[in-house]
């Protein structure tokens, strides 16, 4: 069963966290994996904290329950640290991906000295620069897909071009903007 990657997303209603987890399932599905993408639901209000989950595996996934020992935690809104137990179930070997413009030390401190791998993506800046709005889900999706090693960078860009084309057919401006967000995120992650 260890071939399964379990991911937990933390965001707020209206930020596209649920959409990002469903997009990740789509990406993994297209690489031939078995996938699950599901939100933890309560009456979701714009701004209220929400949690979403993914399981990605080489074998069929039958488990239908929330994930409490994730391999990867994605924090789409850093103001959730302290408000919601984002580190629950982590033992320090896992990976945390956080949408933030702050530096590694400050973030590790705010995460009570989390010792695992910490990837920082300035999703707000990237999305504002590329699609002109603070909608960090495409940069975060890109970072998680990379962390899961689903595809090479170029394969992922190609896949996103095709999937964005399907989703926003005819709206080239949105497609170009989001594609630019993907490319910029990949570049910043490499450095």
């Amino acid at each position: 069963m260890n071939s399964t990657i379990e991911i937990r997303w933390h965001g707020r209603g209206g930020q596209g966290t649920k959409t990002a987890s469903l997009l990740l399932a789509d990406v993994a599905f297209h690489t031939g994996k078995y996938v699950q993408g599901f939100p933890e639901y309560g009456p979701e209000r714009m701004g209220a904290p929400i949690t979403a989950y993914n399981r990605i595996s080489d074998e069929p996934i039958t488990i239908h329950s929330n994930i409490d020992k994730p391999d990867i935690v994605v924090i789409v809104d850093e103001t959730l640290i302290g408000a919601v137990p984002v580190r629950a179930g982590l033992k320090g070997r896992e990976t945390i991906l956080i949408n933030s413009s702050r530096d590694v030390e400050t973030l590790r401190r705010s995460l009570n000295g989390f010792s695992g791998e910490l990837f920082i993506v300035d999703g707000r800046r990237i999305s504002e620069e590329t699609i002109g709005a603070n909608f960090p889900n495409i940069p975060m999706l890109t970072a998680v897909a990379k962390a899961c090693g689903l595809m090479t960078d170029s394969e992922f860009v190609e896949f996103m071009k095709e999937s964005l084309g399907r989703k926003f057919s005819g709206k080239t401006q949105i497609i170009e903007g989001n594609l630019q967000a993907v490319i910029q995120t990949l570049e910043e992650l490499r450095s």
Partner: protein
Amino acid sequence: MNVNFKTLMEREERFSGGHRMCAGCGAPVAVRAIMRAVDPEDRAVVGCATGCLEVSSFTYPYSAWTDSFIHSAFENAAATISGVEAAYESLRRQGKVSGARKFITFGGDGGSYDIGLQSLSGAMERGHDMLYVCYDNGAYMNTGIQRSSGTPRYADTTTSPAGKVIPGKKQNRKDLTQIMAAHNIPYAAQTTLTANFKDLHEKAHRALGMKGAAFINVLSPCPRGWRYEAKNLMQICKLAVDTCIWPMYEVIEGDWILSYEPKNKLPVEDYLRSQGRFKHLFTSGNEGLVESIQKQVDRDWDLLLKRCKY
């Protein structure tokens, strides 16, 4: 009775913060204004139909209501509170309960125009001493913006989507306020949020002061469902009134009285362009829809003017 604006604002808050309505929702603004019309010395018992307001204002163990509150189901807010009012009548008669109570129950447009219409009609016809307030946000917002009979024509909702063949909701909006007036209840009125809240306050206070059944319909914009920027709440209400899409009037003991006539009546287009749910009306292939809305609004407005003996 015109208590001035500032003294009114100092009344003890009867609908607290800490509820979970979306940021910028119109409904809690309407609810605060209605509850502010309950005189300080009176105690209220509040009912609510299932919906955004209910699930957000009473999530265990947090209630945003300072007064007693009861929610039971979706289709029966009026029936539930009529039971509370009946108990009060009986227990007061037997001397087991004393002191005045105001019975107020809230419902969204879904809970009032559609699933709750039968129990609302029943409670109004039986003449229970209560005020029913519909916070009309134009669709089933709590379940994710599905069309109700209160949804404006051609509006894009998730069960009347603007599709390639059908441009949003096909039917005209049901006029619940006139249906309630036709119950010949002592008081029925239509209002919304205005800068000084004078219209809404006076209507709520008048309704609460009258014996018997009263109904007020309050347009309560929903930023999420109507797709406008939350900060523009009051501007959206103003546009609704100045385009005569949402006329403000009251029916007191059968007398129709217009509350507001815009100095210069704006075209409906100003209202429609302010919201994403009408965006498709301005795309090619849908020409003529705005015009048909304008015609309908003008016809309804003229009818109302006649009824108000203008």
